[in-house]
């Protein structure tokens, strides 16, 4: 993907565009060849309008005035994108922002679109709308490369499927006569993993209690907004509590408040009968919270440090990493070897930097590290994001095993199948509140999706997504 977009150079092999061999030295070369990329993380300036964002860096094409506006309108209408050029990007929802990203690429004359995990941040209804847009593009003769971990989506939108595993093409498939199961087997090389856990291990011993948690934060414009208001829930030993929600509705803040990286403005957090509402992060970690962060590069790893130092990170005060105030580098190294072995971290050694591992292996290292300290509570934020299917299955297994042994898990995920499959209890978060709850045994992703956009609240029943008591 990076090679196709000119961000990295291949060691060997060729790229052929429109029957012509091409060599890309930079993304600019790729754009010139009509290849455009929509990144997983949007690259938009919030404080500019859509028009300004689109022309930014492409001023030479159609200027920055009426001509550019006309062109944007034209593209938007042609592909049914429905983009308003004068709206501020900060006012747009995630799906609209994505359409702006697509438009940006088309505006630069792309004939081949690369979409990297475009559905990760969307709710099911928005995914459908995106697929309609993609079909529109296809009908106009454009080529779309759709990269996704979600098999169902690939099957429904693609005309041709190529499966890549560990850097090599392992097979191609025709979506018309392939099932998700076959596709997944191609991806993992073995049986299809599934997040399903049905036998309940929930006990009635509360492990984490969050009561009326409130948190205000200053947004980039200097306005103080309440990002968490009146959040209350209890997780028992052996229970997985899943929180669904479109990203940016307070999930990250909730995790940071529980981890002690943000100090709540009100409310009580109780871990195993100890009040930890204002305890420092290190105390909480020592007290038995394991943490799989949402953004492992920002919060989970020291990318330029060797693996064994990353094994120490977060648990520097605990054995085997240190004795008294001193590090025990030897024991830490030995334990890193163990984690690498037991958690199947694919690496040539423990002295390589964390940056040189693939996302899935980085994540396995983090999971292994957090599980090695016998946590009472595991906070797993998007534990399988950007992780290959094989690693995904392992991580699910580890969460399930730990849960059976009485671990309480707070699971936050954008993958609704993962949430429904792993959770014992489901809550929906919307604009800093827990607005709805649901039974994972009966609920469907679509029903959950409607609550995530704020369209439904209360207790979600199957086939009855608006009913239920208010709370």
């Amino acid at each position, binding site marked *: 993907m990076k090679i196709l977009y000119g961000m990295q150079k291949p060691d060997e092999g060729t790229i052929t565009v429109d029957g012509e061999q091409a060599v890309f030295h930079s993304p600019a070369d790729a754009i010139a060849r009509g290849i455009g990329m929509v990144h997983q993380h949007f690259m938009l300036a919030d404080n500019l309008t859509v028009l300004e964002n689109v022309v930014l860096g492409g001023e030479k094409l159609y200027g920055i005035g009426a001509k550019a506006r006309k062109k944007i309108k034209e593209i938007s209408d042609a592909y049914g994108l429905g983009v308003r050029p004068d709206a501020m990007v900060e006012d747009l929802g995630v799906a609209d922002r994505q359409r702006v990203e697509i438009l940006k690429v088309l505006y630069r004359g792309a004939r081949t679109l690369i979409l990297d995990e475009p559905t990760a941040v969307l709710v099911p209804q928005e995914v459908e709308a995106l697929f309609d847009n993609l079909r529109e593009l296809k009908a106009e003769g454009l080529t779309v490369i759709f990269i996704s971990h979600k098999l169902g989506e690939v099957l429904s939108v693609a005309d041709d499927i190529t499966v890549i595993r560990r850097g090599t093409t392992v097979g191609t498939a025709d979506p018309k006569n392939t099932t998700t199961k076959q596709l997944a087997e191609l991806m993992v090389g073995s049986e299809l993993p599934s997040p399903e856990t049905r036998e309940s291990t929930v006990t009635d011993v509360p492990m984490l209690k969050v009561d009326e948690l409130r948190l205000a934060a200053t947004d980039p414009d200097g306005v103080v907004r309440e990002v968490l208001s009146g959040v209350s829930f209890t997780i028992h030993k052996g229970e997985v509590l899943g929180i669904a929600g479109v990203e940016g509705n307070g999930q990250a803040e909730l995790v940071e408040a529980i981890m002690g990286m943000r100090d709540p403005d009100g409310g009580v957090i109780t871990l195993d009968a100890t009040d930890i509402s204002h305890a420092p992060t290190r105390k909480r970690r020592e007290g038995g919270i394991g943490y799989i962060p949402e953004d492992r590069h920002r919060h989970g*790893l020291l990318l*330029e440090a060797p693996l064994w130092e990353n094994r120490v990170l977060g648990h520097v005060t605990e054995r085997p990493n240190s004795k008294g*105030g*001193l590090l025990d580098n030897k024991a830490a190294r030995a334990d890193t070897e163990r984690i690498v072995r037991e958690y199947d971290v694919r690496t040539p050694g423990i*002295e390589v930097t964390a940056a040189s591992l693939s996302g899935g292996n980085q994540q396995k290292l983090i999971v292994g590290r957090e599980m090695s300290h016998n946590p009472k509570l595991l906070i797993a934020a998007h534990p399988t994001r950007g992780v290959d299917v094989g690693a995904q299955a392992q991580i699910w297994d580890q969460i399930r095993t730990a849960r059976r042994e009485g671990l309480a898990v707070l699971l936050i995920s954008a993958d609704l199948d993962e949430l429904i499959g792993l959770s014992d209890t489901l809550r929906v978060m919307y604009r800093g509140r827990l607005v709805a709850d649901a039974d994972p045994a009966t609920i469907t992703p679509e029903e959950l999706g409607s609550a995530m956009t704020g369209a439904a609240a209360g207790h979600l029943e199957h086939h009855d997504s608006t009913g239920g008591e208010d709370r």
Partner: protein
Amino acid sequence: MKKFTQRIDKEKLLLAIAAPVLAVVAALVVTALVILATGKNPMPAFNDMLSYGSASDSQVYILNKATTYYLAGIAVAVGFRMNLFNIGVDGQYRIAAFLAAVIGGAVSLPGIVAIPLMILAAMVTGALWAAIAGVLKVTRGVSEVISTIMLNAIATAIIAYLLQPERLGQLDQAGTLVSTKPLPHSSWFFSIDNGDAGQIWGFVVIAVLVGLAYWFVLGRTRFGFDLRAVGQSESAAAASGANVKKMIITSMIISGAVAGLVGLPTLLNDSHQFDNSFPLGLGFTGIAVALLGRNHPVGVALAALVWGYLERTTGHFEVIGYDKEILGVIQGVIVLCVVIAYEVVRRYGLKRQQQRVGAELAAQAAKKQEVTA
């Protein structure tokens, strides 16, 4: 044993040494070009650097200079490891040395008490002066770069104010020089006599101890791990449980305390008083030395020696008909090259490792397939 050699990745070591060597070589090439441009032959100059620099009196001089530079380098390196840029080492050591000189001149205690007292006073003064910048950064978000530069200027002004005959200074007999009251002979630090070659300052022992402490605290303690973690990624360190604000203040204090020692080799082994001729700008030398030495305890020592060597040998240039300003050119080019070379080597190293890991894993996978097939 096998494990140990495995740990020392040859390629990594090569890359680590490549950058500073590259920088020094580039600097010498540029220097040669500059000398050529002035219409002179650079070869005799380099020859002279070799022969004059290896003379025994030069070696003593270089070692003494390097003692001071090493302390300055370590003071800066503590900040660098934490991603803090302590430009204020300059002000910190001057105000610390000044206060130590005043105290040492005022008390009449035996050396065994007076010397530790002066060392302690200097470290505390340096630490407090640096802590101001740390507190400002943590509470008000003031960049330490700005605040320490300003604190340098304030230190200069305070010293100028206090170093006057009617305040803490006194006029010498000739009536031309204002200085603090000279230290009694008993408060001089010991030195090693080498006859004609000169005297090696005993403070080199303290510098070595500081280097050992730096290595131990950073590499072997929990505190050091937190400090390095914050330096590498503030967000990851915070998530790991390090108190970033506390770490910023603590590391500023440590950096300042080491900075407090910078002026002491000169004070206790050489000048024995603080006056207007007390060396200036050692803090900036420290920045260059820490950069060249990659913040590594041994690297900084080598860098300090290189710096002393360059200073000694180019000082002799005038005698053989070259311009001594060449020193500035060499040092400037080294710093510039070092910064560029490190970044290039760092990026190359990361990418190279990524490729190697990928290749090794692919090889492993292929082997496994062969076995199962």
